[in-house]
C-alpha cells in the first residue's frame, strides 16, 4: 500500500523539505506539494490505490496562522486525521494552541535541520499513522530507538534487572544471591533504610500500618525489582514495610557499594534510573487508579449514608406513629369506663323515671317511646293527628299530643278528661325526658364506636390472632353492602363479579370492614345522583402471581391531587359540625387490614371518577 504525504508551503524551506522527503520515501509514498492550503480545495485526492493523507509536512509562511492552516488541512475529505509535522524557522510559536488541543500536531522541526533527519521523522510518522489506520495485514514496525534510556525503558523488567546485575558485577565483582523464604521483612517502615535490594526472582509486597492498627497492602504487582530506592533519595526512614510473599532470590547492596558501582560503570546509573522510573510510574498509575476507585467508593458511601438517613427518618416516623397508636389505644381504653358509665346511667334513669312518675301510665309510655327514638313518618303522623283531633277537636292540641307520642285514642281520652293543660304539659315533659335519654344513648354509642375505631386502628392486629381462612371475597362485599343498607338509599349500587375471582386467605370480618369503609367513603363523597360500582375480578401480575382485585368506584367530585397521597393516613374529619373518626380513620384502617392480608390498596381519582383498588393474594398463592 502506497501512502500519501503532503508538503505544503512556499519558498526555499518548503522546497528543501520536499526534496529530502521525496528522495527518501519516494518508493513507499506519493508526495504531493502545495504552495498554499487553499490550493488543496482543487486537489482531487490521493492517487488510485494510495491511502488517505498519512502525513502533512507544513511549512507556514511568515504571516500565516498555523492553527488556521491546520484547520483547512483537516477540513479536506481526504485528510481527516493526518500526522502533521510543522517545519519552521520561527523561534516562537503562539498560534498552534487549538491544533495541540486536538492533538493534531505530531511534531515541530526547527530549521536548519540535520540533513536526513526530516526524512527519518517522516518515515516514523508515516509508520505511526499506518499503525493507527491499518490497511491489509502488514503493520509496519516503528524505527528502532538508538538511545540507551529509551532502549532500557522498552526492555522487559526481568531483562533490565539482569542487565543491572551484570553491570553491577562488572563493577563490584560477583554478588552473592540471597535466598529468602516467604514472610521476611526486608525493609521496615520504622527503621532507617541504608541499603538497596534487587529482587532477582519472587514477589515482594509493600505495606503500611494503617491508623486503625491493621496493615494496609499498597502494592503487589507494582512493587518492581528494586527495594529501598526511594529511601535513598532523601536518606530518610523507609515509608513502607517490604515483605516477601513468595520464596525470593535477592541481591543486597550497601550505599557504599552502590556508590562505587555508579562511579565506575555508567551503565549502572542508566539502568538503575530506568528501573526506578518504571517502578515509580507503575506505583503512580496504581495510586491514580486507587484514587479514582476511592472517589467512586466515597460516592457510593455517601449514597448509602443518605439511604441510611432516610431509613432512619422512616423508622422515626414509624416509631412516632406507633407511639401515637399506643397513646390512642390507651385513651380508647380509658374512655371505655366513662362511656360505660354514661350508658349505664341512661339505662338507670330510664328504669327509675317511670317509677318516679308513679301512677301515670301514659307518661311512662310516652317516655319509653321517645327514648326508643322512633319517629312517625309524615303519612302516619297525619293519620294519628286526624284520629286524635277527632277526640280533642283541637288541631294544635292534636299536633302536640301526637308529637309527644300519644296516639292511642283511649289514652287521649283519659288525658283530656282532667285538666287538659296539666296533662299535656306532663306528657310533653315525659316525651322531652325520653328524647333526652335517647340523645344520651346515641351520644354514648357514638363515643363507643369512636373508641372501637381507635382501638382497631391502634391494634388492628386482632386479625393476626384469628386463623386466616379461605374466604369468598364477593360474600364479604355483599355482607358490607347489607350492613350499609341504610346509607345506600340515595345512590345506585352495582356489583360486577367475574366468575373466576379467587378465594383469599383472611379474616372475613376484617375484609367486610375494608369494604364498609371504602363504600362509606364513596357514599359520603357523592351527592344525590351518586353511582357506586364495585367490580371483582382476578388479575395476574408480572411475576405470574394471582390476585383477587376489588375496585370500588364512585362518580363523586374526586380527591384533590394534593390529598391523594394522604388519604390512608389516619385523621379526623369534621362533617356537618360533627367530628367523625369513621372516614378519616376508615381509610387508614382499610389500609392496615389490607396490608395485614399481604395485599395492596391504591387510589386513582379525578373529578367524576374515583377508584379505590384493593388487591389480595389468591389463597392458592399463599399456601
Amino acid at each position, binding site marked *: 500500500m502506497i501512502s500519501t504525504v503532503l508538503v505544503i508551503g512556499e519558498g526555499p524551506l518548503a522546497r528543501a523539505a520536499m526534496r529530502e522527503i521525496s528522495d527518501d520515501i519516494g518508493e513507499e509514498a506519493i508526495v504531493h506539494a502545495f504552495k498554499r492550503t487553499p490550493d488543496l480545495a482543487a486537489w482531487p485526492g490521493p492517487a488510485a490505490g494510495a491511502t488517505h493523507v498519512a502525513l502533512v509536512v507544513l511549512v507556514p509562511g511568515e504571516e500565516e496562522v498555523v492553527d488556521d492552516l491546520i484547520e483547512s488541512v483537516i477540513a479536506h475529505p481526504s485528510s481527516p486525521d493526518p500526522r502533521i509535522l510543522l517545519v519552521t524557522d520561527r523561534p516562537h510559536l503562539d498560534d498552534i494552541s487549538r491544533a495541540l488541543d486536538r492533538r493534531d500536531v505530531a511534531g515541530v522541526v526547527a530549521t536548519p535541520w540535520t540533513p536526513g533527519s526530516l526524512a527519518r521523522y517522516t518515515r516514523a510518522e508515516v509508520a505511526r499513522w499506518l499503525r493507527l489506520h491499518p490497511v491489509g495485514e502488514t503493520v509496519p514496525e516503528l524505527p528502532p530507538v538508538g538511545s540507551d534510556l529509551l532502549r532500557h525503558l522498552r526492555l522487559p523488567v526481568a531483562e533490565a534487572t539482569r542487565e543491572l546485575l551484570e553491570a553491577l558485577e562488572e563493577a563490584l565483582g560477583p554478588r552473592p544471591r540471597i535466598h529468602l523464604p516467604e514472610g521476611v521483612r526486608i525493609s521496615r517502615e520504622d527503621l532507617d533504610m541504608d541499603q538497596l535490594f534487587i529482587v532477582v526472582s519472587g514477589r515482594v509486597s509493600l505495606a503500611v500500618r494503617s491508623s486503625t492498627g491493621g496493615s494496609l497492602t499498597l502494592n503487589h504487582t507494582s512493587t518492581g525489582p528494586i527495594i529501598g530506592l526511594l529511601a535513598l533519595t532523601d536518606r530518610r526512614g523507609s515509608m513502607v514495610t517490604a515483605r516477601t510473599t513468595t520464596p525470593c532470590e535477592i541481591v543486597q547492596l550497601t550505599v557504599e557499594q552502590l556508590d562505587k558501582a555508579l562511579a565506575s560503570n555508567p551503565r549502572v546509573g542508566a539502568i538503575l534510573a530506568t528501573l526506578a522510573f518504571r517502578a515509580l510510574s507503575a506505583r503512580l498509575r496504581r495510586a491514580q487508579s486507587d484514587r479514582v476507585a476511592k472517589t467512586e467508593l466515597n460516592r457510593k458511601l455517601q449514597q448509602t449514608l443518605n439511604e441510611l438517613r432516610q431509613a432512619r427518618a422512616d423508622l422515626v416516623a414509624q416509631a412516632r406513629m406507633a407511639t401515637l397508636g399506643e397513646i390512642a389505644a390507651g385513651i380508647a381504653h380509658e374512655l371505655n369506663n366513662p362511656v360505660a358509665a354514661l350508658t349505664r346511667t341512661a339505662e338507670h334513669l330510664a328504669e327509675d323515671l317511670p317509677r318516679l312518675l308513679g301512677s301515670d301510665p301514659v307518661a311512662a309510655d310516652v317516655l319509653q317511646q321517645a327514648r326508643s327514638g322512633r*319517629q*312517625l*313518618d*309524615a*303519612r302516619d*303522623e*297525619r293519620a294519628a293527628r286526624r284520629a286524635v283531633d277527632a277526640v280533642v277537636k*283541637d*288541631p*294544635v292540641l292534636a*299536633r302536640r299530643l301526637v*308529637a309527644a307520642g300519644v296516639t292511642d285514642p283511649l289514652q287521649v281520652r283519659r288525658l283530656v278528661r282532667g285538666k287538659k293543660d296539666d296533662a299535656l304539659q306532663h306528657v310533653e315533659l315525659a316525651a322531652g325526658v325520653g328524647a333526652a335519654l335517647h340523645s344520651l344513648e346515641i351520644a354514648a354509642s357514638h363515643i363507643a364506636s369512636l373508641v372501637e375505631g381507635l382501638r382497631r386502628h391502634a391494634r388492628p392486629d386482632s386479625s393476626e390472632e384469628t386463623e386466616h381462612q379461605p374466604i369468598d371475597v364477593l360474600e364479604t362485599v355483599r355482607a358490607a353492602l347489607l350492613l350499609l343498607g341504610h346509607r345506600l*338509599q*340515595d345512590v345506585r349500587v352495582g356489583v360486577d363479579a367475574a366468575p373466576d375471582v379467587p378465594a383469599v386467605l383472611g379474616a372475613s370480618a376484617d375484609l367486610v370492614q375494608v369494604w364498609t369503609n371504602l363504600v362509606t367513603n364513596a357514599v359520603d363523597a357523592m351527592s*344525590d345522583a351518586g353511582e357506586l360500582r364495585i367490580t371483582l375480578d382476578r388479575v395476574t401480575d408480572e411475576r405470574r402471581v394471582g390476585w383477587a382485585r376489588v375496585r370500588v368506584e364512585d362518580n363523586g367530585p374526586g380527591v384533590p391531587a394534593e390529598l391523594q397521597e394522604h388519604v390512608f393516613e389516619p385523621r379526623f374529619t369534621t362533617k356537618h359540625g360533627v367530628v367523625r373518626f369513621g372516614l378519616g380513620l376508615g381509610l387508614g384502617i382499610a389500609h392496615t387490614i389490607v396490608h395485614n392480608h399481604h395485599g395492596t390498596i391504591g387510589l386513582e381519582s379525578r373529578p367524576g371518577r374515583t377508584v379505590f383498588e384493593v388487591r389480595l393474594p389468591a389463597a392458592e398463592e399463599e399456601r
Partner: protein
Amino acid sequence: MKLTILVLEDEPDVRAALERDLEPLARTVRIEPAQDVDDAREVMAQVEADGDVLALVLADHRMPGTTGVDFLCELVADPETEHVATVLVTGQADQQDTIKAVNLGGLDYYIAKPWDVAELDAVVRRLLTDVVERLGISPVKHLAALDPVRSMDLVRHGWGDR
C-alpha cells in the same frame, strides 16, 4: 273552608320544628306535614277532597327523589296551582339552585336554615294575604293568620270587587 299550609321536609325533626313554629296559625289554617313529593301530592288530593284550599308550600331544598325546587317550580307552572305561595327552605344554600328556583321558577320566597321564627311568621302571613287577595276570597275567617294591616285594608275596601 280552610287555607292549608303544606310543610314538605324529609327530616322528621326539622318538619316538627317548622310545624311548632307555625303553631300560632294552627287554629286558623290547616297545617299538613309531608315527607316527600309523592306524599305531598297525596296531601294535596286530600285537601281538595276536604274542600280546603292549598295556599302555601314550605319545601325543603334537598330531598330524595324529586327535589323541593323542582316540586315548587311544577306548582308555579301548573295553572291549577299557580295561586299557591311557594317558599324554599334550605340548609345548604347552593347558590345555583337558589338562583334557578327564585329567578326561573318564580318562587315567592327563600328561607335559610336555621330560620328566624319572627321572619317565618311574617313571611307566611304576608304570602297567605297575597293568596287571599289573588283568589278574591273573604279574608274574614282567616284574619288570625294574615298580615294584620293589609288584611284590614282588604276588609275595609271590600274584597268582592269581582
